[in-house]
């Protein structure tokens, strides 16, 4: 098992280095440098070019590319993510401020879609070929075909504007910070964000359950005289769930990416909304750091999923 993890790490670390290198290259190639962002544009025109060069030299901008990359990456590893161009705020501070909101939203969506998706998928598999199964299949198809933000708009119209049950957006009202005050804000974005993933999990759970139900141990359990619900739930569902959990592990980073649009629709103050405004204002350092962070999350999640699969299924770690 340890050698398997070591082998996976050996392929992941070069990947991470290559991607961080590409991201730094992109950062380096975008127009403007630190000096042109530190000095107001109307002052920079009147300054002596030699003085500017001196300033660049003192900041280490004259050093060779690889040396600058090394300084940058060691800084990143120590938590120095650089500064946003908008207001010169430390990017690590933006992350600390915004990440909890994004995590809250995506975790809520993850929990909802896992539970709902596996239950619906199981029902669909158990009632295979009937009207209920076909209806669920079509509903699942609708779930992946209607744009998420369109669901969001309709939800805002119905539940916030017409019925007035839930707030239009935002995460909290000033002064009302307790969990119960915040919960109504979370309901709509979390549900809307979970729709597409619920449909995906449902589809996957259905085929996985069908696969499990055709195995020999199910027939054995039935022939022992075990009640049908026990066969389905204790034997079928449990076996069918393992691949579904693996699928969810893979989807976690996708979910963080997918929350970008939903955060905008519901004015949710998370990383995704911050990322969008950074893209709009061409705040390259922030854009690149969010990208780097999301890639690292993907790599980490894939490592965890690989280890989990290897734990469950010995064939994986012994193969290749």
């Amino acid at each position, binding site marked *: 098992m340890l050698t398997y993890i070591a082998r996976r790490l050996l392929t992941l670390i070069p*990947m991470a280095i*290559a*991607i961080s290198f*590409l991201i730094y290259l*992109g950062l380096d*190639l*975008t127009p403007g440098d630190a000096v042109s962002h530190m000095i107001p544009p109307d002052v920079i025109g009147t300054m002596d070019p030699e003085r500017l060069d001196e300033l660049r030299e003192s900041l280490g901008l004259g050093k060779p590319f690889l040396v600058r990359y090394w300084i940058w990456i060691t800084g990143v590893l120590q938590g120095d993510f650089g500064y946003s161009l908008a207001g010169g705020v430390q990017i690590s501070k933006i992350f600390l401020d915004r990440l909890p909101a994004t995590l809250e939203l995506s975790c809520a969506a993850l929990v909802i879609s896992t539970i709902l998706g596996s239950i619906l998928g199981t029902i669909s598999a158990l009632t295979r070929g009937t009207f209920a199964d076909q209806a669920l299949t*079509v509903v699942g*198809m*609708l779930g*992946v*075909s*209607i*744009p*998420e*933000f*369109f669901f969001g*708009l*309709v939800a*805002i*119209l119905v539940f916030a*504007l*017409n019925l007035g049950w839930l707030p*239009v957006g935002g995460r909290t009202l000033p002064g009302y910070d307790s969990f119960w005050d915040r919960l109504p804000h979370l309901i709509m974005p979390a549900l809307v964000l979970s729709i597409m993933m619920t449909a995906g999990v449902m589809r996957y759970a259905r085929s996985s359950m069908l696969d499990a139900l055709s195995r020999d141990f199910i027939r054995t359990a039935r022939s022992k005289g075990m009640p049908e619900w026990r066969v389905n739930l204790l034997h079928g569902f449990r076996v069918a769930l393992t691949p579904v959990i693996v699928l969810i592990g893979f989807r976690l*980073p*996708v979910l*963080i*990416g*997918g929350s*970008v*649009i939903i955060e*905008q*629709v519901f004015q949710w103050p998370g990383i995704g909304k911050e*990322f*969008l405004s*950074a*893209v*709009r204002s*061409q705040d*390259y350092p922030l*854009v*690149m750091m*969010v*990208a780097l962070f*999301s*890639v690292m999350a*993907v*790599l980490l999640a*894939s490592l965890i999923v690989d280890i989990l699969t290897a734990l469950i299924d010995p064939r994986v770690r012994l193969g290749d």
Partner: protein
Amino acid sequence: MSDVPLNPGDAVRSPPRPRTRRDAQFDRIRDREAARQGTKLRGGRFLSKFLNNRLAVVGLVIFASIILLSLAAPLIAQHDPKSPNLRAMLDPPSAEHWFGTDRTGRDIFARVLYGGRVSILVGLGSALLSALIGVVIGVYSGYVGGWLDWVAMRISEIFMSFPQIILVLLLVAILGQSLLNLIVIFTLTGWGGIYRMARARMLSIREEEYVQALRSFGLGPARIAYKHMLPNALGPIMVNITLSTAAFILQEAGLSFLGLGVPMSVPTWGNILNAAQDLRLLENAWWVWLPVGATISLFVLSVNFIGDGLRDATDPSQQG
């Protein structure tokens, strides 16, 4: 038969050589293949299976009618999609304006039709382009292996470790917004999936007997890969093209909705929906966002139905 693309592996075949018995054998095989092509035996079975799938046929009809309506936009639409009419701002649907008018008095019916042209072009165009790149590289490198395979695999791994929308937005921030850039960005971010699928398919049929037979006849790797193995991988490739068309149309809609996709001056489905970010319009002018939202959903749904039908018709393991 001599117009096969040349590549390093074919170099051996280039000097003219005397005809042998093997060539005569080949001619007979070729004749038989040519004779078989007329009968459409394979196509017939595939078609009847596809047509037996009710949802797939419904999907095909919707898909074809939306495309035809968009193509025939100049014949159907009575108004110019771009010219504002300040005397008819936010008019509800009427005999004059079937879907009403938007904030600047532009006819929404015309905008949906013309917008369909651009949205479908982006979706279908990017899917076909990324399939072309993915299949050309994947089929050859999956069969031959070697350094090309290694390099392509690493590049696709790098692309696929980014959450899709983060990578797309990152590239939008760097390359800027335009119709062509969007297609390029979608192609860049989308080829990896289809490349891996084509490659995996080739790996699994590489050791089949007919491939070994062809190799022993002395056929070059390019001809074996593209002419004889590719047709056996075509089913999953077609399914993948339809599914990525659906995904790209959703992504274009999402990006344009955020104002970061196709420039606002060009009508696309996402750009029309952009107006619905204004809560007053969302509440009081349903015709601005509902028809176009329904059109996107219907189109993506039809593409997904077609994709499912194709999968059932081409993949024997998915039957039942």
